[in-house]
């Protein structure tokens, strides 16, 4: 009996979420942490452990939240406007509805319809679909404000029976202890979700891994405890529980800089601290670099590569191979060993084949802060790769600069007849969820039905790209990208069009003609010299 259980546990563990379990534990491990700097450093005037409201017996998250809101009586309203709550964002520039409620990405494709799993990262208690709870007591304050590292979240539902066993055995949360030790969010708080985007450590962003909870200076000069020890909110400046620096509201070129003294700018740009002329005006090189600022994002030079520090990011994903089983069971292969020695998946029945990478040179592109998304409603030309988020901007657009990106390449399922991306029902305790039944067509049909979208029933796979701005993992200035890495015939900016880059671009025909003329002149001179010598010798003889 015991052996049987053990077998079941092991095989199911592999089938499902061994990677996901890392979420709460890996990132929040630093109780004796020094205080991280925020944009608005305060010496607190309150000790939460002494508040009467918190000196009571708590049995659940919502009970703690009620206690929080009994003093912080505006926080609930503020949070319910936040994108972490709404998971929806209306981009006024493109008119598109963005956010996890709507979008399809090229990782685990869609949160919509899979909230039972994905809402593990929604800051609410018990959101199982996008009908969000109205009660403010359903807001999870602790995921952001816990400082003990002992708080964790589980997926709202257990999914297919094949997966349920995984989430047993966690130590119960000591609610009173957690509630009495709240504080400003630390890197590990934000990281409990953002380091694990895409379904595992650093899978999605490339520049946000568990390493960032305590990075060395070489990995991130700002966030390293040996450097500035910035909390995320030092740059993602917050006002009334709304914080700046969302990808959806990109600011590719900041023209305001630091702003006037005394006025804190609610902006997440390098320039908001470093100014519009960030390099000291003490050398020709630095003066030149200050003019680069106009057309090149700071990150393009100051983040020489991403996925640094020992944790790999996923670079390629192939859904075409998902669903393979061994003796009817899902399996996982881990054939990539990352810098810190940990093995990473290269195949997983529920997801397909992967490639992972570290210390990756970014993909560079013109970017003006606007993304046009390929949504479930977008019909595309299936003969070409599809940009999940098409980067807007060009050399002729003053708001654009050359930005570094992680470019994710994924073969993703789509509706082969209607030529659009699809919602896939991955998670659920039913016979349609892909993670449990491995039947893709059925899972898509359910996902599209739940979202009231048409589905032809024909499933194809399309090559997709998604672009993730590389903006964390800023290296010490000595490690910035050297001039000649772009100013070279074969350089980092090979793909960049519309500008003249000395040392990279040439007027090929001018070069060729010029060297030909120079060679001809040289030969003419040589000939002239030979005739002179020959004539002189002949004169001497005669």
């Amino acid at each position, binding site marked *: 009996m015991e052996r049987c259980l053990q077998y079941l546990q092991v095989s199911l563990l592999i089938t499902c979420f061994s990677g996901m379990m890392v979420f709460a534990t890996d990132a929040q491990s630093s109780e004796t942490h020094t205080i991280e700097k925020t944009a608005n450093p305060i010496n607190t005037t309150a000790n939460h452990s002494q508040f009467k409201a918190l000196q009571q017996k708590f049995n659940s998250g919502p009970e703690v939240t009620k206690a929080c809101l009994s003093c912080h009586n505006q926080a609930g309203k503020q949070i319910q406007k936040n994108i972490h709550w709404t998971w929806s964002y209306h981009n006024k520039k493109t008119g598109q509805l963005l956010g996890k409620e709507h979008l399809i990405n090229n990782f685990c494709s869609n949160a919509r319809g899979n909230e039972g799993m994905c809402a593990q990262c929604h800051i609410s208690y018990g959101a199982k679909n996008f009908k969000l709870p109205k009660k403010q007591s359903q807001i999870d304050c602790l995921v952001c404000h816990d400082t003990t590292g002992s708080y964790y979240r589980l997926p709202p539902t257990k999914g297919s029976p094949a997966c349920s066993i995984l989430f047993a055995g966690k130590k119960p949360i000591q609610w009173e202890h957690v509630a009495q030790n709240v504080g400003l969010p630390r890197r590990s708080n934000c990281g409990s979700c953002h380091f694990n985007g895409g379904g595992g450590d650093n899978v999605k962003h490339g520049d946000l891994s568990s390493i960032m909870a305590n990075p060395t200076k070489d990995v991130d000069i700002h966030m390293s405890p040996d450097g500035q020890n910035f909390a995320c909110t030092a740059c993602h400046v917050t006002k009334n529980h709304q914080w700046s620096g969302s990808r959806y509201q990109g600011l590719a070129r900041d023209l305001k800089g630091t702003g006037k003294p005394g006025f804190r700018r609610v902006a997440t740009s390098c320039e908001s601290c470093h100014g519009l002329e960030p390099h000291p005006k003490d050398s020709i090189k630095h003066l030149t670099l200050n003019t680069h600022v106009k057309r090149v994002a700071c990150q393009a030079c100051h983040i020489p590569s991403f996925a640094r520090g020992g944790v790999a990011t996923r670079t390629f994903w192939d859904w075409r191979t998902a669903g393979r089983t061994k003796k009817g069971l899902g399996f996982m292969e881990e054939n990539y060993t990352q810098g810190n020695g940990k093995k990473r998946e290269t195949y997983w029945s529920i997801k397909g084949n992967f490639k992972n990478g570290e210390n990756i040179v970014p993909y560079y592109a013109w970017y003006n802060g606007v993304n046009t998304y390929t949504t479930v409603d977008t019909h595309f030309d299936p003969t070409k790769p599809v940009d999940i988020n098409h980067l807007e901007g060009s050399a002729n657009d003053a708001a654009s600069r050359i930005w570094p990106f992680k470019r994710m390449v994924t073969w993703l399922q789509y509706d082969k007849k209607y030529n659009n991306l699809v919602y896939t029902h991955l998670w659920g305790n039913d016979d349609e969820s892909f993670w449990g039944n491995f039947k893709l067509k059925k899972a898509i049909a359910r996902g599209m039905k739940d979202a009231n979208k048409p589905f032809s029933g024909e499933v194809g796979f399309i090559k997709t790209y998604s672009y993730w701005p590389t903006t964390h993992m800023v290296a010490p200035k000595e490690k910035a990208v050297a001039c000649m890495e772009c100013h070279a015939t074969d350089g980092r900016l090979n793909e960049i069009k519309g500008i003249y880059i000395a040392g990279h671009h040439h007027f090929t025909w*001018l070069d060729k003609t010029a060297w030909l003329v120079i060679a001809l002149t040289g030969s003419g001179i040589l000939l002239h010299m030979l005739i002179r010598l020959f004539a002189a010798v002949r004169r001497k003889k005669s």
Partner: protein
Amino acid sequence: MSMHRIMIYTRFERLWHWLQAGAILTLLFTGLRIHGTHTLISFETAATIHNIVAIGLLVLWAFATFWLFTTSNWRHYMPTKQGLWRIIRFYSYGIFQGEHHPYHKAFWRKHNPLQAAAYLGLKIVIFPMVWISGLIYLYIVLGGSWSGLLNFPAAVAFTHTLAAFALILFLIIHLYMLTIGGSLIQHITPMINGFDEVDLSQVEEAYLEADEPNHIKDDINQSENHR
């Protein structure tokens, strides 16, 4: 008219020539690095040296231009057809027959007509191409901007590159000319000590002997012969 060794390249002119030569060689070396022709030094070193030397050369040119106009030395560069054909004929035919260089330097005409034309071309075509495009380059690189101008204009780079290639061509021919109509040493020495053989009129000779005795260095025999 008689031949004399006189000071033909004054101290400033020699300084100008050699500083300019050094600057141009440095600029060509670093410029070709920036262009991507070679990678013997790093891009940033090349760019820094290129900028500093370029600014230095601009200052030198400002002085040289001032000098040319205030001392009337610009007259040496005025184009003339007189004797031009003989020079061309010499380079393309006479030289092979063992003829001597037909040109004798005169006090106010120290370059032969072809040479003068070449130097004039350098001064009024190639150099302005370099410095006008270079100044625009510097202006942009050091933080200047035009309203409406977003990107570095490729035409500026084109002009600058074209002028650089023209300079290389000039340099090659300039250096080869050192071997024609006399030995290498004979050609280089005047640009070091300033003295060269010049055909002087009696008036010029008298003037030099009376007012610039240090600028005329005839050996005794030769000068006695003339008297």
